[in-house]
């Protein structure tokens, strides 16, 4: 979990915020950014947490490991720190004429930390490894659009789907072909208009040959491709990175050494920043958010930025709980929630009330997609409920995982609903995130439950397809709308980004009618830093931008 802003995320999102995203390393271009100056060299310490998995890019989807992976791996494209716009990094060009056959040309001379050159086969091998089911990589599903993905998956039933006849038919994706050392092609099984945008996610990092000889050792001491290399991972204590001398890309950093100090609590990290024992914390504890105390503790040494995180409340699938099936009831509940007040009272303004299902930081965002349904209007909410014939169940429930800070806002939300609609609403804690997700996954959770999403790549598509497409992996409410699916398909086929975005926006507008989930608020990241560093910027992913940070 992360803090403040990230607290937001944290709090908001749950124990292990996702993160995939993280692509944090960078800013638009190398050294030009130094807003506040600062010299090159020196070392900094930043707050870290325990990676859940070995540090392999294709097996890391949570923030703790993701923050490190992002700093040590360069990808084909790099997301701009300010705007999240992708620019080519390892790629010289990514071309397609039909959104289905892509040709990737690499820049020559870029190197891994062991000195070997990054070639086309390093990408193809890494992606095949990620996709192949028996390797059990957590972000293997990112390869799903690539042709041949189905055959690389185990099909057996039960706890070991790879046993016996269920074994994956192929260990390579047929859609990937190495043309020469610096060229490879990607063929997707369906049209994908935003594939180049996705390629900046860490799952698409290249892997050096040494990885394949001993993946286990690699996970402990990864050999990356980015501006920083990993020197040491002292388990549960610190992760030390230093500048890679042979880095020749455009997104290098200024400081020579970055140490992630692992903290169990954000309060401890925050106090260390105040005492100048730690340089940057990407999580401000709740105690310091009250009345914006951190702004007095760290004057001019804090920053806040919206990130690609959204908190939603999802309705259980209709077959699980028919009481919420009528969109009018869903609209009534949404209109009964006073988002502004809750954000102010509970989150001290560290969230941004949502007006749609897509984060404002991504390409294709359109404001106010939810329209009047996301505006607090208790009178109209009540009228809508009556129109729908009242609420049939005995009370509205809003479930949350009780192991993270969700109790306050879910109760506030319920109170708001109760007062506006006159129907009893109860915030129900589920013991922990694991149990919570299991109940949702097995479709046993009734009523409403909290859901969060942190983007994997900065595209409007990432907030729609994985969550609301029929049968999608994170479609917890089993939402299915043929028209929505059709619009997504059309958008994926569009050659022109603007035209694709407009289709995605049309699809998003359908969500306002059906209301499969209630948008609550967008996340913000708040960071604080010591008086030793300067140029601290927050990326659109809520991570520290290591290209601009410098020692004073």
């Amino acid at each position, binding site marked *: 979990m992360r803090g403040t802003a990230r607290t937001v995320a944290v709090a908001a*999102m*749950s*124990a*292990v*915020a*996702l993160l*995939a995203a993280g692509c944090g390393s960078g800013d638009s271009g190398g050294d030009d950014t130094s807003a506040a100056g600062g010299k090159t060299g020196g070392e900094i310490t930043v707050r870290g947490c*325990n*990676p*859940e*998995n070995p540090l392999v890019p294709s*097996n890391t*989807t*949570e*923030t703790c490991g993701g923050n490190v992976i992002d700093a040590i791996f360069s990808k084909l494209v790099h997301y701009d720190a300010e705007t999240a716009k992708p620019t080519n990094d390892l790629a010289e060009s990514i071309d397609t004429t039909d959104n289905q056959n892509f040709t990737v040309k690499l820049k020559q001379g870029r190197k891994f930390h062991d000195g070997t050159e990054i070639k086309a086969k390093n990408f193809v091998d890494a992606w095949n490894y990620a996709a*192949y*089911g*028996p*390797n*059990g*990589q*957590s*972000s*293997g*599903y990112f390869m799903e659009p690539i042709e041949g993905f189905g055959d690389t*998956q*185990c099909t057996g039933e*039960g*706890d*070991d*789907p*790879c046993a016996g006849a269920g074994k994956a038919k192929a260990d390579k994706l047929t859609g990937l072909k190495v043309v020469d050392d610096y060229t490879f092609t990607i063929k997707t099984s369906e049209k994908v208009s935003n594939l180049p945008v996705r390629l900046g996610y860490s799952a698409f990092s290249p892997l050096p040959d040494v990885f394949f000889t001993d993946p286990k050792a690699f996970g402990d001491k990864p050999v990356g491709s980015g501006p920083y290399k990993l020197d040491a991972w*002292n*388990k*549960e*204590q610190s992760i030390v990175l230093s500048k890679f001398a042979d880095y020749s890309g455009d997104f290098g950093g200024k400081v020579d050494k970055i140490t992630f100090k692992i*903290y*169990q*609590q954000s*309060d*401890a990290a925050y*106090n*260390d920043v*105040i*005492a100048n*024992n730690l340089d940057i914390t990407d999580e401000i504890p709740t105690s310091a958010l009250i009345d914006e105390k951190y702004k007095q503790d760290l004057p001019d040494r804090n920053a806040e930025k919206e990130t690609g995180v959204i908190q939603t409340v999802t309705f259980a699938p209709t077959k699980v709980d028919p009481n919420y099936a009528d969109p009018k009831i869903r609209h009534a509940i949404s209109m009964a929630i006073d988002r502004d007040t809750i954000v102010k009272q509970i989150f001290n303004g560290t969230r941004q009330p949502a007006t749609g299902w897509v984060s404002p930081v991504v390409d294709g965002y359109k404001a106010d997609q939810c329209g009047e349904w996301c505006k607090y209007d208790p009178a109209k909410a009540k009228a809508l409920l009556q129109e729908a014939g009242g609420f049939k169940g005995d009370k509205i429930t809003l479930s949350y995982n009780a*192991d993270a800070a969700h109790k306050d806002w879910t109760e506030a939300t319920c109170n708001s609903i109760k007062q506006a609609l006159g129907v009893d609403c109860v915030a129900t804690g589920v013991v*922990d*995130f*694991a*149990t919570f*997700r*299991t109940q949702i*996954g097995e479709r046993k959770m009734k009523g409403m439950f909290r*859901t*969060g999403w*942190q983007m994997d790549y900065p595209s409007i598509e990432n907030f729609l397809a*994985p969550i609301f497409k029929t049968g999608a*992996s*994170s479609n917890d409410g089993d939402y299915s709308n043929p028209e929505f699916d059709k619009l997504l398909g059309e958008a994926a086929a569009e050659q022109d980004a603007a035209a694709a975005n407009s289709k995605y926006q049309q699809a998003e507008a359908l969500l306002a009618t059906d209301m499969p989930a209630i948008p609550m608020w967008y996340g913000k990241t708040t960071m604080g830093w010591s008086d030793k560093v300067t140029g601290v910027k927050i990326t659109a992913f809520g991570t520290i931008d290591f290209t601009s940070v410098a020692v004073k």
Partner: protein
Amino acid sequence: MGTYIIRRILQMIPVILGATFLIFAMVFALPGDPVAGKCGERPCSPAYRAAYIQKYNLDKPLPVQYGKYVLNLAKGDLGTTSNNIPVADQLKLRVPVTGKLALMAVLIETGIGILAGVLTGIRRGGFLDNLVLVSTLVLISIPIFVIGNLAQLYLGTRLGWFPVTVTSSNPSVYQLLLPAIVLGSLSVAYVSRLMRTNLVENLRSDYVRTAISKGLTKRRAYGLHALRNSLIPVVTFIGFDFGALLGGAVVTEGIFNIPGIGGYVFRAIRVRDGASVVGAVTFLVIVYLVVNLLVDLLYGLLDPRISHE
């Protein structure tokens, strides 16, 4: 005495085995999905899940899982944590830290607590007695996280007398001093009250009166006779408290970012990391048993009537 100790040590074996089994069974019985939190907000991919479940034998029934665990244990392999770090390595790093912290806390609580208890017990009703009564009342009624955070804010961040957090994996006595004081503060209250009450009671007893009428100095009668007898419950408490401090310093460890056992067990339980929980708790069980044995032996020293022969 020797046979007593050997018998006690032999008795520990079934206790340890039983404890590991119970803990193992309890972790096993926890509801929910062990991989659900490993991949962030979304469900883990089936491939990841299958690989993880196989790696940790999660698909096997309890007796098989436990059997495998004990077999590995016999080979000295404590297994790996859910994020793939050998449990033994973690314990090796963390036990000395927590041990040092708990020992310092016990020394602080014993020193201050017994001294305060004796002084107030001898001059009960005086100014000092009332002062200690009120201040221990205050200490007992304030939750430890309040004391910890306040001490960190004022003595660490504001005044800079102590380090704000522990920054090394092998912290010095100075780095651990503030956390140890915080940790020991609550027990100081208990130790001093226990000491005082027992002393007051013993001072009224016949043997003390006899000793004094026999012509012994007050100092000798109190110090040699009354104090020794009064220490028995205090030693019992301190022995128990040492064990509790080892595993129960979660809050203090969190506030001061101390890489100890408490935080480790807490995190392990939350993510259902069976190997870590069992490994760490088994260690704590052993410590409890050893400390209790020491306490029992101390009884004999304090009161010769208690014999271990």
